[in-house]
């Protein structure tokens, strides 16, 4: 019943790096979207673009995450 241990040690860190990159995709995209929105707000003297940037960032993060899932799952087959 127990799964065979994931042997190759070198591989482990590569995998770890790949997955930790995943964890940052969504927060990073959100943050970048927000920053762009705030900068645009300052430049154009508006007050709502930061919100739009935030939403675009969140959506972009999700899209990227889903694309990674689909890509990785396709590779396993």
């Amino acid at each position, binding site marked *: *019943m*127990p*799964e065979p241990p*994931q042997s190759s040690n070198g591989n482990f860190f590569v*995998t*770890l790096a790949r*997955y930790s990159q*995943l*964890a*940052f*995709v*969504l*927060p990073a995209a959100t943050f970048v979207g927000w920053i762009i929105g705030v900068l645009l707000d300052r430049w154009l003297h508006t007050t709502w673009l930061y919100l739009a940037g935030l939403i675009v960032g969140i959506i972009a993060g999700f899209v990227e*995450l*889903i694309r*990674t*899932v*689909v890509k*990785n*799952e396709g590779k396993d087959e």
Partner: protein
Amino acid sequence: MGTPIQHFFTSTDCLLALPMIMLALFGMGVLIIDLMLPAEWKRANAWTALVGLGFSAAAVYKIQVADRIAEAHGQGGSFVGFAGSLVLDRFAIYFFYLFLAGAAIAILMSVKYLEIEREQHGEFYALVLFSVVGMMCMASGYDIVLLFIGLELMAISTYVLVGFLRRSQRSNEAALKYLLLGAFSSGIFAYGLSLFYGLSGSTNVGQIARTLEEHFRTNPKDPIAILALLTTATGLLFKIAAVPFHQWAPDAYEGAPTSVTGYMSVAVKAAGWAMLLRIFLYMLYPLRSIYVPMIIFVSLATLTAGNLAALTQSNLKRLLAYSSIAHVGYMLLGLVAGNNENASSTGIKGIMVYLLVYTFMNLGAFAVITSLRRRDIIGDEIDDIAGLMFKAPTEAILMLVFLLSLAGIPPLAGFWGKYYIFLSLIESGHYALAAVAVLFAVLGLYYYLRIANAMLMRPAESAEPVAMSPGLRLALAITALGTVAIGIFPEIFLRAAAWSLSVPQASAVLGLLK
């Protein structure tokens, strides 16, 4: 010694024990009725068990009404029975409802599943009822002896339930592993409790807390007290499957009948949490400066190990086992925040909400996995759920709802659990912990999306339809309704969680918990 029996057993005691008495009677009733039922009628045992759960819930409601009346008269809302060894406060009542709901949904999920496995026996339902009696002792016990007996009653029933598929090697192996590791942890836990008894000379939780506080003021680095704390904590952390005491969980979860896996991951875990909160917040509160750093370490280890291990699983039950370990990590963070002296009890409230939403969303996910079990298909690999969207769109969409809720996406129930934990961390100034927890939440999203991807994007491996039954449909409807309703109308449930913690502690307990 000449003391009248009324001093030991009063009518209040009877009322307080009524929910447990009901369950025990119905459990034994199931065993007797089972003998008289012909083989094709065995599923009627499930109805007997459900009626028993209903009677028990009515008894809990009766206590709740008594609590309301007592409140109207300006008295504190907690009842003490059996000479202080049983305390039915709102905390306990909240957990009672949670256990009963978890057990009822698990029974609804089991009926068809056990028929497919050809293991439809009355003992199954009796054991579920007996394990709920044990859980109730764990949530309301105010004496370390009662707490321990409750723990064992629950654990022994669960060992048998895990190994209930006698013809399945996986199930037997899982039960044996769980039994051995569980016995060790119970032993260590009992050792810790015996040291506390030695230090305080009492088995009463409140009395131990009082003695410990005095003891600790005069002797702040007493090695015996620290050893007792460590061994007790080990036993408790084992029961909720926190790292590094989690190794039993994936094996036991994978081998157990799927409905039992669902039951273990919510009700048994909630009982472990009830006892953990009771002991950490009531009995060991004077030692909080020692155990908080330990809990921080354990929660970070739990989050890391649970999430990273879940990423690479190909078995659905194993994946959900690791994800349930990860969820324990978030809840432990609530305990860290709730222990900060400057903070409100948002963290503890977060744990209560989390346990409630987790009951619905995780049981729902397991209900869908249960339906994948067919006569000749085990149905717990990710490949087995592939193409579910084309075979059974309703189940696929419900599964998606449960998965997104587990990942914590608003406006579903899971979001509120995580939200309150993170909020409590920020309120109590643990910014770094909150940031780490958010990153792990995103990682969690990845492995839940893996299942969703298989379900929605890949073609089905076999054309066989899923095994649905009225019981399973009802279980799915209840869990889906719970997941969506808590997500959209969180107010009612948040108020219930706050209510469960609103006991004026001084009436039964020390005034330690603010």
